[in-house]
């Protein structure tokens, strides 16, 4: 009898626990990663392109700019690359690349192989610029309008995410 009473209580608690787990799993925002949306763009030092040219920073603070963080070692970047090419062709927007912790030779090979949708690519060999921008890892895409980050996608960008979060600014 004692065993059964004990077990009944235990089972009751267990079912409660399972219920809690089930509810907790419903929360799909379990580990929310904060996007940089709504924050101003801050660039406090000189930037260079992968060709070694100095970047005109002022140009990044005016108008609509898409900043795409990519790298040759990043496989998801290859997946989103055709979509970026499409955007470059169809939308009237400046696309700037940010080569994240990557060797210049590798980046150039990558752009030769898959095509170059970027007006230019900023070099970020040690990742410090990405760190300032709040980048977690490539691929990431920012939409910057007049120096303000209005949309930020962490991960692969595709037509669905574009329509959902980026299209409204065009």
């Amino acid at each position, binding site marked *: 009898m004692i065993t059964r009473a004990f077990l009944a209580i235990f*089972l009751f608690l267990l079912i409660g626990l399972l219920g809690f787990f089930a509810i907790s799993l419903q929360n799909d925002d379990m580990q929310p990663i904060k996007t940089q949306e709504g924050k101003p763009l801050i660039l406090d030092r000189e930037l260079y392109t992968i060709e070694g040219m100095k970047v005109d920073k002022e140009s990044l603070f005016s108008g609509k700019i898409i900043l795409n963080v990519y790298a040759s070692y990043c496989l998801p970047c290859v997946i989103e690359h055709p979509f970026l090419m499409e955007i470059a062709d169809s939308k009237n927007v400046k696309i700037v690349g940010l080569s994240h912790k990557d060797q210049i030779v590798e980046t150039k090979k990558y752009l030769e192989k898959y095509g170059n949708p970027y007006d230019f690519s900023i070099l970020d060999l*040690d990742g410090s610029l990405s760190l300032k921008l709040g980048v977690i890892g490539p691929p990431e895409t920012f939409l910057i309008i007049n120096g303000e980050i209005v949309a930020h996608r962490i991960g692969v960008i595709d037509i669905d995410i574009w329509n959902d979060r980026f299209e409204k600014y065009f």
Partner: protein
Amino acid sequence: MGTSILWFSAFLCVLIFSFSLQRKSHNLAKNLIYANLGTLFIGALYLGYQFLSDNFSFVYIFQNSNVLLPTFYKVSAFWAAHEGSFFLMIILLSSCAVINNIAMKESRYLSLSNSVIAFILFFYLIFLALTSNPFMIFEAAPLNGSDLNPLLQDPLLVIHPPMLFAGYVFYAITFSFVIAGMFTDFDKELFSIIKIWAGISWFTLSLGILLGSMWAYYELGWGGYWFWDPVENVALMPWLAGTAFTHSLIFSKNKVLLSWMVFLGILTFLLSILGSFIVRSGILNSVHSFASDPSRGVFLLSLFALFSLVSLGAFFFRSNFLHSGWPKFMSKNYLLVLNNIILMTILTIVFLGTLYPIYYEVIYSEKFSVGPKYFSELITPAVFALIILFTLEQFPKILSMDKLKASLILIAATAIIFIINYFNMGLLLSGIFLATLILKFILDLLNNESVRLHKLFGHLAVVLLTFSVLLNHEFSKNIDFKIKPNDKVEFMGTSLIFKSVDVVPNKNFDSVVGTFEVEDKGRNFNIISEKRVYKVGSVITSETGIAPYITKDYLLVLGDRYKDGSWSVRYSIKYGIMMIWMSSCLLLLSILYGTIRRYDY
């Protein structure tokens, strides 16, 4: 090909399950168990071969390997992430079933145990094939992999996960026998089988936890060995339940509290599944979160629900057939019951502390985390209660006194615990207990009394472990400072000179090596601390420089370089770390000896 191997094996499990339940086809079921292991083994060889031949069209291999990775780690990358380690666990479980079938030719428990294992295996395989298939293939094969997580490129971590998994797997075996016993009868033969498996699982799980703890200390560079991290806690929970279970098996001689033992056997297994659910679902944030994925969580939760409801339901309906008695007041068995109660209390403390954040998030939709203070403050008195219990057990004369005196002693013991807690005298007290136990041991040896070595040394190890942990907690210190090469720093009576810093290239990483010279009361030695930059993805890891001595360890972590050429450095002196490892090893050896010794019977 790989995926079909998994499905075929799952199909075999269904056959094993149903054949094992029919008396006529037992032999067929046995042969199928061998065939199943063979099938899985082929699958493992296939995957292993792909790793060695750098076939990055496999998603799993792309994620965990790289052309530059040394061959040794290419092999160990097999179980570096969720998919492979779960696959390994399945292979282990089915090999255990094979071992059972070879070792026990004719046992009436065998077929029931086989069907329970097949039942578990079937769901594991489905889980593997559907949500975490290691054989998944890319449409376009990438040229190179994204490398094994650098933190995992360490010999200790090559064996830590399989050990932990092996511990879990072995508890599934004890579980299968406990279930088998529930539907037949618990006799001497079954108890000896359960005791051996319980001993082996206890040993492996302890070893797995110890290795993980050593890895945290040497590789993560946090300067600690236990952090009450959720993932550590979920490994600790089955360990605690397993400890209680192994102790409760001592009751078996006169079948005292049989149903309690059955309950613990089931609980241990369920906690190990709960462990994989919590680790793999990402329901809690932890250092181990790299392994998480919510879709797996749903599946594992369903598995946990299924296993727990089926086994506890069966237990509920069979409980009246389990004859159990109560132990006599203050007998040895009575102390064992107290031991079980205390272990369950610790388990509850860990359980609540680990899961409270989930509860809090569901109710208040806010993040919450439980600090180490909660655990250490609640668990320390419980550990002391345990120590008092087994010290008391060494003195049978006190126990054989009349009930009144014995209860007075119990009350006094409780008072002692509170005093220790209040005055923070744990260190002193654990020292006293240590001395008492050793003295008693020597006296017994001199009087030619029979001594149970495994028990005595196991208990001694626990006291020594407690002592070292408290020592570490009380005296360890660290400082952070900026230092230029050839500068000198004084700390806790030691002096530290930053001798040099060099860059050394390696196969898959480059490292910055800092050499330090430490002088402590005539003792003079060098410590080398490294910072590694891995070539793929530029991940940076710190290799802590450690000079271990019996009483204290000297730790150096090389930090970042400043523009003026100076470096940030963390220097710590940790007491008792070596003693923690040694007492844990003593505990492990006692468990091992206690288990092996059984083969004589």
